[in-house]
């Protein structure tokens, strides 16, 4: 690669502000995000949270839609297995999305863009680190172009 080309790539990278959509369950992960806030933990501003009652409320369609609309990464966060406010909701999440990840790969979406994780209400630190780690991965992968609807302007 020529020097100019390398420079051009690095410029694109620095302009690249990834967008991460996080679906957080109301009882654990959303509270974890709140704790990250009250503890003033700095994490990437590229994360936008959508509150859902339980991680099992997240329809795989919502994830696809986020990718279509230009999200570069998607996280679903719920209570730790066994701690679900609704007893068993997150077990369904775990199952559905382990299958769904295969579909994503089949569609050509790198599976590193997508993550299901468990963040309790006491884990403000974990919330920040999960988001930062995903951002790091998305940065390496570059913008999501595969599913993105080109008519959608961001």
């Amino acid at each position, binding site marked *: 690669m020529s020097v100019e080309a390398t420079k051009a790539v690095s410029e694109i990278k620095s302009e690249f502000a990834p967008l991460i959509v996080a679906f957080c369950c109301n009882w654990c992960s959303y509270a974890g995000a*709140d704790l990250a806030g009250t503890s003033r933990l*700095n994490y990437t501003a590229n994360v936008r949270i*959508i509150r859902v*009652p339980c991680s099992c409320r997240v329809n795989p369609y*919502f994830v696809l839609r986020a990718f279509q*609309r230009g999200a570069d990464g998607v996280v679903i966060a719920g*209570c730790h297995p*066994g701690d679900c406010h609704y007893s068993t909701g997150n077990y369904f999440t775990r199952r*559905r999305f382990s299958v769904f990840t295969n579909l994503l790969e089949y569609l050509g979406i790198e599976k590193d863009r997508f993550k299901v994780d468990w963040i309790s209400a*006491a884990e403000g630190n974990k919330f920040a680190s999960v988001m930062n780690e995903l951002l790091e991965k998305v940065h390496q992968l570059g913008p999501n172009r595969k599913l993105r609807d080109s008519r959608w302007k961001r």
Partner: protein
Amino acid sequence: MHKIGVFVCWCGTNIAGTVNIDEVVKAAAEIPGVVAAQNYQYMCSEVGQKLVKSTIKEQSLDRVVIASCSPRMHEATFRKTAQAAGLNPFLVEIANIREQCSWVHKNKEEGTKKAIALVRAAVAKAAGNTELIPGEIGVEHRALVIGGGIAGIQTALDIADAGYEVDIIEKTPSIGGKMSQIDKTFPTLDCSACILTPKMVDASTHPNITLYTYSEVEKVSGYVGNFEVTMNQKARSVNMEKCSGCGICSSKCPSRTTKSEFDEGLRNRGAIYTPFPQAVPNVPVIDREHCLKFQSGKCGVCEKICPAGAIDYTQEDTKITKKYGAIVVATGYDIISLDKFGEYQYGSHPDVITSLEFERLTNAAGPTGGKFVRPSDHKKPKKVVFVQCVGSRDKSERGKSYCSKICCMYTAKHAMLLGDKYPDIESYVFYIDVRTPGKNFDEFYRRAVEEYGVHYIKGMVGKIFPEGDKLLVHGVDALTGETIKIDADLVVLAAATQAKPDAEALGRKLGISTDMNNFFTEAHPKLRPVETHSAGIYLAGACQGPKDIPETVAQASAAAAKAIVLLSKDKLVNNPCVSEVNENLCSGCLECTHICPYDAISAKELEMNDHGKITKRTVAHVNEALCQGCGGCTVTCRPGALDLKGFTNRQILAEVDAICQ
């Protein structure tokens, strides 16, 4: 088109410091559907709420978006505000621009951009909101208190005095908890038993209180106002009705090898035993693991000598299921195991004891009858060293990172009690810091230093060596840097407090969360300190974190008050954000019924008139009183007939779209 009002809160500088409020307001005003965009310093204040109310009325708003702190903090506040202005409370949405934005992003430009995106998403969701009307559910007018220590007893007494039935479930054979093991209490030096045992008797004789001792919670189902709890009452092997509590059985039991839990292992008990003479109920239990009759079939002494014929070896565990409106968790604490603190010789030298063992050693009803002697040779010690923060404020893996809160005070108490009884005993206290933040606490500590001459040494103990019949304590005085060696006769370790080992499992049964130290988490550390995130479940005492007795009792009464408020209602309003079935789309596969943890979905027969021919069709039906609104069923539904009110597919997709803009 909707008429949406957006209200942006500064939260003083909490939001305004890192978010350009004017820009957010300007951007909000440009979103289609938004007819009013306002800002105010404190939107949750009376003035702020008035602004919301008057704008709703003046501009006839039909949707409201508040850009402020977390909805977990003030969603209810603003819903009430909207309701007061004549709007359905469920037409309000919150954009969380404080916890999710201003507090975590320092860059003002980034923060403002994100705040606008969050507002846009909230507006998009609000546009899809519909008026929701909560249903009503009945309330079972009975409370369950889990744990029979001072917290549980106080809670139960308060609820019972208010006229409601209360059950106390206690794992051990008697109520009383840790407080019953304590000799004197700080800072008043009251005799612990003198203030606790009358309360224990009150609890056992109160017409509204039922005690389930030697019992554990097995299963909890249901929801606020309507919990169904199954408990397992372990076989006592003694008929509680026949037993008169004479105590002959325990005095004649030939098995004497079991360490008494109540006396912290400083004396042995029989296999049939009451934990302590003032136990409530005063009925012994047979510890089947150590009973000769149960282990080898030989013996049966207790049955032969019991004058009341109360011994019943055939008794079995019984399961009891009851309904409760409210549950108070008061399971208390433990002290940590000191296995990992080899340098202090605990466990390998009998004269290194924990503070709880010290309590038993100075207690008149304890193993030595209150005579303070060394466990090894029963001689009176002359020099006693107290080591504080053993495992507390310890960030290494063997200890606990938090302050156990009560140790500074009880160590001062111990040293003072020794000074009172035996003025010739010299006491040394090794401490990191002395923490005395309570009423009359610092005065108490200063008395220990000034009046009783207790030697306080700032510094930690590095190692303790047994030497002859002494214990050589090596420490450092952190203020002078000097190494200190004390030849002590007895060492008392103030071991850290910790959550009960089964707290997490109980939390799981109840659906309440524990923090990183396994203490139960309150709904809000400042504003809802006795509630949990599960409605109808409250916390009292040290199961929430280290607490002393006055704090525990205060919280117990607070939990009782909360429970009484709940029990005093005949009806509760339901969460209206529940699933609903579109019967036209439902194919009747009933996959959703398998996923519902509350059995809220069942089959329903629909009669259809198909060109004059009546046919029947099965569809799913949601019982709104049972549905808790998790939304798991909506994803399972193949034809997409199920949707969750308040979090509909359309609303969430609209949020996704708006957030990605």
